[in-house]
């Protein structure tokens, strides 16, 4: 995309959106304040409300805490929100009571020009307090609730839906997921319904810095809204991610409360923490506020992964219905199943401009027309997004195809729908703890390994992208009982493997990246812990949905004081095979052939085979064998692991 904007660029965003007619001024149904200009509050009445609120200990009420996003953590009780705008009391972030008093008083302040009145700004707080304290609306500067209701009715909100875009090929990091909150239009106009999104706001374009800053709260997250179709275009089309829509069984009143809270969260920033205070976690507050007895925002330790928040919704019995919205790529692959090889050749040739529309038409049979035109339409979009065809060619061919399609009536057309894959909540849990025993170079060892998140090739890919691996901070440590030695084996900062399959429709790149510290083998055949960087790129394909093979050009850099110039620099290649039988038995095999150059000249060969048997969704047994040849010596490492996914 062309640009990003922090909040300081908010103005530019608004200007831009106005130019797109997002805010059609003539359409805005301006509802003026119906306020008495001579309004003055009755101090005695306000004091009586404050007293009543304190007597009732409303500041200690769980619902008040929810409205303020108040949590008790390591630093004591405080609101997770970091924006002064959200608080009416000076120390509102920490004091529930001060904020309560300030809120009640703010409702009775006169209207000021160019300032949003608290009765508009904090409508969820007002509704709750009004109910608890029986606030007399005739004593307010204007009717807050009535004012909100007029607006709310104009939006015509029906059901609430939480959307989960699944991971996409070529980006293992996307497996982590994301969630959106949709206020569905009552007439079931789902795609133009408002989609609420919580995201970090940044102009940072450099990935690694973005990642680090995102992890440690350097960015501010904000709620924003856009038509759901924008998000469908972004995820389903541009990124080719399947989307899952979970309709919640919230009542009309509950949905309305969630919407009121969205209004309160407008333009309010909170420090964004990728692992816990992230996109998905923040949306949970909307649901917690919607239904008072819920407490979805508690019970997350260390991380709140988007899919875990979906599991939380299911567990709380909040999900009424699940809909699958296949990505553009899933549609293409789905359609391709019923298309003959000869026909798909024609589709590819036409889409890439090798045959004309006339040639295409004369080669396909009448009863296949609708199906093949639809397939071609999707494929043209795919090629455009992948930069395989120019936009001028796309426009020309798309119109040719659609013109033909519009002349085919639908009587013969078979209604097409993509077969639903396993839903994302059926995937394994992302934390993995494994215990293993084995021998390395004839020495016995015990190993403990832990991965905070998220998925590796050997794990079951049910509900996840196939051929993708991403692990954050996996580490392993060994104990050698014979010589009573404890060793850190390996710690990766991040480990990514993406094995997108190439097929006749799409040639995709594969890559791997792994960096951190590990035991490096030294020229004298001892080991020392040092930094490493392993990267590669290549291609992959699969056979019969059973075997996947890949090949990569690879480089492996190791660092240690014992190496010449402190480094071992290897170049070479890797061949790999993945074999998956009914999700129960999986085999991941690879062989590397490399040559150390410049500093240490040595041949390096490594063969690794991992075999995994899935016992339950959270328990698996894995056998692993590695043979390594380096500095003219061969070592064998064989082990068995018991792995728990939680």
């Amino acid at each position, binding site marked *: 995309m062309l*640009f990003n904007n922090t909040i300081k660029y908010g103005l530019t965003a608004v200007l831009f959106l106005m130019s797109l007619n997002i*805010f059609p001024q003539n359409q805005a149904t301006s509802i003026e304040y119906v306020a008495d200009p001579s309004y003055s509050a009755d101090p005695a009445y306000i004091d009586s409300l404050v007293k009543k609120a304190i007597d009732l200990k409303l500041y200690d009420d769980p619902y008040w805490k929810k409205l303020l996003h108040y949590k008790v953590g390591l630093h004591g009780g405080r609101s997770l929100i970091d924006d002064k705008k959200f608080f009416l009391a000076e120390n509102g972030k920490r004091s529930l009571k001060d904020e309560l008093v300030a809120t009640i008083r703010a409702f009775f302040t006169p209207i000021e020009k160019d300032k949003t009145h608290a009765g508009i700004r904090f409508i969820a707080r007002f509704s709750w307090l009004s109910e608890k304290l029986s606030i007399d609306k005739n004593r307010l500067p204007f009717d807050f609730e009535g004012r909100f209701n007029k607006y709310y009715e104009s*939006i015509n909100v029906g059901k609430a839906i939480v959307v989960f875009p699944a991971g996409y090929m070529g980006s293992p990091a996307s497996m982590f997921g994301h969630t959106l909150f949709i206020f569905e239009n009552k007439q079931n106009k789902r795609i133009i319904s408002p989609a609420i999104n919580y995201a*970090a706001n940044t102009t940072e374009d450099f990935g690694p810095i973005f990642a680090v800053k995102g992890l440690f709260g350097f960015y501010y997250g904000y709620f924003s809204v856009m038509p759901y179709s924008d998000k469908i275009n972004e995820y389903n089309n541009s990124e080719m991610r399947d989307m899952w829509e979970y309709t919640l069984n919230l009542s009309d009143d509950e949905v309305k409360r969630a919407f009121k809270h969205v209004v309160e969260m407008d333009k309010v920033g909170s420090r964004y923490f990728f692992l816990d205070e992230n996109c998905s976690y923040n949306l949970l507050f909307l649901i917690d506020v919607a239904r008072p007895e819920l407490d979805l925002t508690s019970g997350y330790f260390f991380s709140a992964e988007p899919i875990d928040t979906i599991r939380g919704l299911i567990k709380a019995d909040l999900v009424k219905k699940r809909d699958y919205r296949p990505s553009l790529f899933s549609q293409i692959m789905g359609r391709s199943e019923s298309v003959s090889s000869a026909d798909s050749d024609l589709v590819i040739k036409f889409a890439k401009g090798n045959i004309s529309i006339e040639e295409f038409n004369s080669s396909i049979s009448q009863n296949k027309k609708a199906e093949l035109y639809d397939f071609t339409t999707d494929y043209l979009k795919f090629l455009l997004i992948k930069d395989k065809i120019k936009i001028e060619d796309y426009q020309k061919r798309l119109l040719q195809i659609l013109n033909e399609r519009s002349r085919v009536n639908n009587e013969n057309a078979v209604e097409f729908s993509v077969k639903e894959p396993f839903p994302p909540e059926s995937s394994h849990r992302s934390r993995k703890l494994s215990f293993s025993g084995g021998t390395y170079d004839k020495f016995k060892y015990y190993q403990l390994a832990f991965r905070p998140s998220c998925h590796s090739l050997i794990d079951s890919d049910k509900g996840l992208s196939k051929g993708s691996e991403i692990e954050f901070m996996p580490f392993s440590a060994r104990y050698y009982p014979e010589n009573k030695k404890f060793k850190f084996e390996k710690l990766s900062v991040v480990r990514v493997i993406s094995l997108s399959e190439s097929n006749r429709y799409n040639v995709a790149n594969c890559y791997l990246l792994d960096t951190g510290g590990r035991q490096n083998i030294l020229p004298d055949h001892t080991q020392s812990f040092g930094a490493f960087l392993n990267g590669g790129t290549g291609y992959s394909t699969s056979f019969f949905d059973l075997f996947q093979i890949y090949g990569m050009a690879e480089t492996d850099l190791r660092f240690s004081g014992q190496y010449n110039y402190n480094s071992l620099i290897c170049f070479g290649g890797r061949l790999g095979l993945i074999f998956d039988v009914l999700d129960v038995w999986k085999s991941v095999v690879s062989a590397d052939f490399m040559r150390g150059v410049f500093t240490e000249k040595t041949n390096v060969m490594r063969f690794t085979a991992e075999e995994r048997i899935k016992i339950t969704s959270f328990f698996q047994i894995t056998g692993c064998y590695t043979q390594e040849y380096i500095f003219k010596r061969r070592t064998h490492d064989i082990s068995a692991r018991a792995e728990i996914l939680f």
Partner: protein
Amino acid sequence: MKKILSLVAVFGLVFASAEAFAGNAGCGLGSVLLKGKKGKVMELLATCLNGTSGNQTFAITSGTSGYEEGAVIGMTDVEVFVAKNMDSLATDIARGNGEYVDTLASMYKVQDVDGFKTKLKNNFDKIYTNTGVTSKEVVANINDVVNG
């Protein structure tokens, strides 16, 4: 200085793209599909962090008097809808069914939805008249077909 420069650059881009992308003419086929794309590096690392390119942030409500402005209201605007969904809508119109053309029907508040869809399908070439057709022209052509 660097900040000012980048601010100027962002302004420049905004206006350039607003001009080229939307302008007064609306946008053409294909442009929306390319709009949602991210840079390579962002694709590798950032997707998990952000889940969004961070460029769509706009407010839920605006103005000091509260709720009257905002995207929520713009969502019922046919021109915006067509501009944002050019390719999906064209596909649905040619097919004579689908979520996008159904939504359009509801925006036009038509009673006979099937008749509406058939009419648009039969007049596809009158709506999407040429490869450079813009969303504004599409809306005008749809109005002509519907009222004609």
